[in-house]
């Protein structure tokens, strides 16, 4: 599926065959170890970069340019992969053959993506102070509005406790109380540092790779770079469970439980942890769904997911406030039963089939192909979906027991009505 080549020190270009799609996509990922001291500037950076770049500095003009290209989308995001921060720039648009007036669209997508990534609008050598002020306010509101999405908020609060003091816990969206100290100068420094120290992963999906390669190399021609080594995969050490309850005026409570794996997942166990999480709470026939949601009606949703890059298991659920303790006990009971008890061949094979079916369709969207490739590159494995499918087919019940045996409950976070905040 993917073909990755190094085109400069710390810069790789991955191409993926995409003939069957009506769209094409160009993406640039900047990856480096997350830094606590610049977290808020690093979080603001993509929002300001998305407004415009040197060749098209005005936000409305950029929107118009994208609309002219038949609603091509430009996304600039930042997120964390374990202890590393990623800033991504992506442009997706329809292929040339659909252009109403025969325009050459693909080359324009590459120009916009690379222009946004490498040549931001820096009047007087710095980001425009007016733009920075406007986008600081947007980031402020994003941070203040975090509580609006209760499910996500509960998980984030739990993770804050789980990763406390670790680089994995550095906030992807920055810190509200540090926003005032970010200005055009610190933001420009953050941009320059990103260009200097990042490993750069470029993707051309259905776009002309030679054009993209030439444009990337030209953009970096006069740049001094020293790509940093990426932060290794790490997980919190097992500890006594910490339990937190936060009062909130909501109809439904949210319960999040985080279990540490204690360290990196061995590559030979990567398939087993996926199967284990799916058996526990990843499908509509999983233990949590069937027993806790359907049979006991203790939650509306109850799902389990495993994170490989900062290895932990997250179980989150929507609960009636008065049922929270029973739901937690039922969840722990199911985990224990799966860890210690029998797993039938039928249950195991059906769960694997669901995972295999999902993996089989990774190649059906540009976005899912790119996401797959990027995360494989991050893990240093560069596997194809078919490789993982083969490994999943070989997972046994003993493998599931073994990987679940490494999990220990570290944090329980309950968002509920009428309780006092504690911790």
């Amino acid at each position, binding site marked *: 599926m993917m073909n990755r080549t190094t085109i400069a020190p710390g810069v790789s270009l991955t191409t993926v065959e995409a003939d069957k799609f009506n769209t094409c996509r160009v993406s640039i990922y900047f990856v480096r170890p997350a830094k606590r001291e610049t977290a808020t500037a690093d979080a603001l950076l993509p929002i300001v970069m998305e407004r415009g770049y040197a060749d098209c500095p005005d936000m409305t003009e950029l929107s118009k340019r994208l609309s002219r290209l038949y*609603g091509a989308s430009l996304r600039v995001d930042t997120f964390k992969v374990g202890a590393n921060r990623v800033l991504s720039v992506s442009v997706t648009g329809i292929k040339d053959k659909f252009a*109403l007036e025969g325009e050459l669209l693909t080359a324009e997508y590459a120009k916009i993506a690379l222009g946004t990534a490498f040549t931001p609008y820096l009047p007087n050598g710095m980001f425009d102070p007016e733009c920075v002020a*406007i986008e600081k306010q947007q980031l402020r509101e994003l941070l203040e509005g975090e509580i609006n999405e209760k499910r996500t908020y509960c998980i984030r609060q739990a993770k804050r406790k789980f990763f406390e003091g670790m680089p994995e816990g550095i906030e992807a969206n920055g810190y509200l109380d540090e926003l005032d100290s970010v200005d055009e100068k610190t933001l420009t420094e953050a941009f320059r540092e990103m260009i200097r120290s990042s490993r750069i992963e470029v993707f051309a999906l259905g776009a002309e790779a030679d054009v993209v390669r030439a444009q990337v190399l030209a953009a970096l021609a006069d740049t001094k770079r020293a790509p940093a080594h990426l932060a290794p995969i790490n997980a919190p050490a097992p500890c006594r469970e910490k339990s937190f309850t936060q009062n909130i005026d909501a*109809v439904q409570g949210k319960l999040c439980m985080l279990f540490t794996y204690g360290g990196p997942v061995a590559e030979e166990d990567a398939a087993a942890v996926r199967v284990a999480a799916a058996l526990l709470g990843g499908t509509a026939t999983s233990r949590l769904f069937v027993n806790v949601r359907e049979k006991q009606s203790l939650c*509306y949703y109850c799902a389990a997911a495993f994170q490989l890059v900062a290895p932990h298991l997250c179980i989150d659920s929507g609960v009636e406030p008065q049922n929270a303790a029973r739901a937690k006990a039922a969840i722990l009971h199911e985990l224990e039963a799966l860890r210690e008890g029998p797993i039938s061949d039928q249950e195991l094979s059906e769960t694997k089939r669901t995972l295999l079916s999902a993996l089989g*369709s990774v*190649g059906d969207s540009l976005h899912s192909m790119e996401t797959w490739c990027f995360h494989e590159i991050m893990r240093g494995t560069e596997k194809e979906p078919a490789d993982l499918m083969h490994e999943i087919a070989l997972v046994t019940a003993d493998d599931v027991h073994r990987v679940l045996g490494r999990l220990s409950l570290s944090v329980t976070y309950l968002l509920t009505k009428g309780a006092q905040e504690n911790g």
Partner: protein
Amino acid sequence: MAENWKKSIAEASCVRKAVLDNGLTVLVREMPGFDGVHAVYSTKFGSIDRAFELDGRRWDLPAGIAHFLEHKMFENEDGDAFALYAKTGANANAYTGFDRTSYVFTATSRVPENLDILLSFVSRPYFTKETIEKEQGIIGQEIKMYDDSPEWRLVFGIYQNLYQNHGIGEDIAGSTQSIAEITPEMLYACTDAFYRPQNMVLAVAGNVTLEMVLDACARADVPSRTAPVKRLVCEEPAGVKTHESEIRMAVAKPLVGLGFKETPIAETDIRAALICDILPELVCGGTTPLYRRLYDEGLISPDFSGEALSVAGATCILFGGETPEPEKVRDMLLEEIARLRREGIDRELFRLCKNAMYGDLVRGLENIEESASGMASMFFRGCTVEDEAAALAALRPEDVEEALRTMLLEEHASTVIIRPV
């Protein structure tokens, strides 16, 4: 050159169609190179269907019954559909909207078996008092989950303000009280009336052939139902129920929603639907001067937007999102609409909006999920992708200016403001 895009669109949107003897319409988009298959089995029955006559008997339905039925259709006397899908590895789900209910699966293998499960469960209803009581608890939880979503409350707050009798003002899932009234008899009446092949479409896209789908239909052998059905519709006055309302809930920042009640458009009127879709973009889309002003003044966040909704008997246009100054944003929207009516539509913006809508249409054709659900939607609207592309190409700014004379009128508007507790 113009022929190139038409050829590309025709190839990308190619649909093979069959209408079975029992009345079921089957639509298949065969997508070479794709591994997955997405199937959508939809009935034209949703939350706004609240009364009907079946074989001369009148049925009045409690709010939320279509959604309740959706949950129950995953069960029959042999167990539940999820257990069977688990054996094939498919990912299955279902959705209820205002005017339709859809049952879907996505799979990369064992497609014939998955089609068999889909057709057999949705065609063979099975309800008992006990299974209904159990479901009432689960759906009660689901309703409560939506109660905590400010966006959901905002949108339904606007519908409730705009409509006096139309079912659009009721939550799709109903309330814990309304679903408590549901009986097995009601559910059987609904399936007899609306889960009949003549009222349904099976749309499948991806690594599949029409022959494969027709074989599954033959195995399922779903009988047609012939008892006469008549949908009963409440009269809806032109005026809005109330012009303003306020909600208090746990949010960080206020939200404002501004809705306009429009004259209902016919489901098959593609041109009118396109006008409804393009209007919000021309008022406050990302390329408009109003959006820029609101954004630069810190009055909206990037997800502030407008959208149109059109179902049988109700068409409305909504604008909304977070804002620190709800009344000011509402007034600026109203002023901008008045300006557009007075000064006309910017030709360049109009062209850009049309371009973006065309791009959306093309993008929707490369994804198995969007392809299948798009085919089902187009079937209920009685048109094809090519019809829509042609109608879009023919749309002129003068058409929108003409429509604006009678649309987005302040006397047909209502505002909902959500404030933090």
